[in-house]
């Protein structure tokens, strides 16, 4: 039953993440690093050849500087971790001043992840990023609470998600990725709504809401009580959500969630993802993304697959 491949000599790893966008977003390979787990690209640069990555998503950026949550902010869990950073960052001006000029010189595109608490703020952020050298695209984190909408996250209703998408779309012509939350009952309808509202691609999943309790102190482990679960523990959930979204949209999907190895990445590609993001696995092994990339190339060669695109969605119902 193992598929026998034809003999291929090289593999074309490149993927296009924004086929509908006039700028396009072509990556040399489908292996990216996820927001909040790779800083602004430079922190790991001493250790890892970041120029081999498909793309880098920077830490979530807001309009104004944010101090973030009181600690503890992280807790280890079985095959994973919780985080409640609270979007600590220095704001979009600082980002554009301190980082974008450097990114403009990199071979690897950097996509800016944005977060906000109102539709207007999202649009404002997108407007400020539009046309700026060094910014290859925007990834919109819609897991943030909608302050005007009773603090329900934008990502939990198709309407609110579509509203954010449309506003960002109007404010910027950059390739636009909407990052979906897993804490919903029907992700496919949200994915379809953001596609219709103009998203170039969707990425999923953001972290799964969880918590841990400090039994000795009889109180929540995290300063913020709840936190986002990431790591191998959530991979089966993320994979299922990608598989469901792949049957609901025709824009590219970026798979995220517990990806640490080549075989993890292959699972996501076969479930319908065009590219993947490596998140907290970089903490355990800073070389995780590049090792995975090397392994992916070898696997495709051995399997006789000449274009990575050929295996995208291979496990979907025929």
């Amino acid at each position, binding site marked *: 039953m193992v598929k026998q491949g034809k003999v291929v000599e090289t593999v074309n790893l490149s993927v296009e993440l924004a086929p509908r966008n006039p700028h396009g977003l072509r990556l040399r390979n489908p292996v990216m690093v996820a927001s909040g787990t790779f*800083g602004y690209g430079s922190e790991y640069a001493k250790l890892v050849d970041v120029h081999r990555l498909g793309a880098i998503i920077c830490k979530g950026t807001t309009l104004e500087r944010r101090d973030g949550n009181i600690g503890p902010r992280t807790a280890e869990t079985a095959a994973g971790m919780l985080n409640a950073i609270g979007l600590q960052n220095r704001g979009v001006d600082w980002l554009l001043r301190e980082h974008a000029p450097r990114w403009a010189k990199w071979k690897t595109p950097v996509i800016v992840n944005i977060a906000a608490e109102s539709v207007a703020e999202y649009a404002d952020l997108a407007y400020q990023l539009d046309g700026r050298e060094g910014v290859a695209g925007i990834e919109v984190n819609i897991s943030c609470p909608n302050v005007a909408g009773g603090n329900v996250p934008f990502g939990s209703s198709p309407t609110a998600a579509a509203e954010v998408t449309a506003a960002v779309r109007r404010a910027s012509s950059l390739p636009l990725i909407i990052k979906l939350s897993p804490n919903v009952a029907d992700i496919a309808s949200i994915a379809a709504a953001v596609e219709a509202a103009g998203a170039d691609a969707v990425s999923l999943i953001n972290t799964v809401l969880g918590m841990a309790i400090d039994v000795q102190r009889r109180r929540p482990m995290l300063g913020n009580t709840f936190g986002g679960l990431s790591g191998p523990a959530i991979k089966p959930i993320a994979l299922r959500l990608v598989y469901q979204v792949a049957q609901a949209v025709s824009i590219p999907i970026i798979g995220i969630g517990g990806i*640490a190895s080549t075989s993890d990445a292959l699972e996501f590609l076969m479930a319908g993802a065009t590219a993947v993001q490596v998140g907290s696995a970089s*903490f*355990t092994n*800073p070389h995780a993304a590049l090792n995975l990339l090397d392994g992916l190339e070898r696997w495709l060669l051995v399997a006789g697959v000449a274009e990575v695109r050929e295996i995208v969605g291979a496990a979907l119902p025929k």
Partner: protein
Amino acid sequence: MQQFTATVSGHREVAPNLVRVNLTAPPRMLRGAAAGQFVFVRASNADSHEPYLRRPYSLAAFDEEAGTLALLVRVVGRGSRWIAERVEGEELDVLGPLGSGFKLDERTRHLLVVIGGERQSHLATVLPLLAPAAAREVTITILIEADTAANLPPPSLLPPEVEYQTATRDGSAGHRGSALDFAKNLLPWADQVLAAGDDPFLLRLKQICAKLYPLPKVQAAVERSMACAVGVCLGCAVETQGTGYARACVEGPVFDLDRLALLS
């Protein structure tokens, strides 16, 4: 910062549940290392996701030339147990040296070290600077506390020149009470103070200092749970006086004590 494979060259239980692990590293991995800096060690086989995160350990000793380093591991859970159980010849996946270490002022003649809190392995943070300082004729006094005698790190870990004053909560060795009970008297003597411990301990130290004039110059090594240890996750936040959060893994773990806004 480098990622390297270190080989266990020996390990030895120096006190109950306190294991010294000696390692050899490839050349040039420890360039510019300082006491108070740490390494971030994978505590599982490469094919296991458990425990998921690496574990931070202070450089308890290092020799840049020889490419050797040592950890002083207090066994408190599965990660520390895994590391402490590695035997000669086994390999560890190490990231480091990381963070900002202690900066010993060249003019310091009287050095006071105060170690407290729940884990006596905090002593590791200062170990590498003691012998060089003693060689420069710095007079060093260490105050350390533990719940009970058995948990005090043995004086054999220290250069003979160091004065070692101990306190135990149950009175089974040294002074009955806290190391901070002596601190009041010794702080004025010191030109420079280095401290390491958990936040409540450091807060008490800070409160004691606050009553003294001139204010003692204290550098303190804090501990935070760490996911990345390279400054990207922002998980190891340390609240500062008025300047938001700093990262224990980059700006720290050693801070000027008066910069810290500590919680009990």
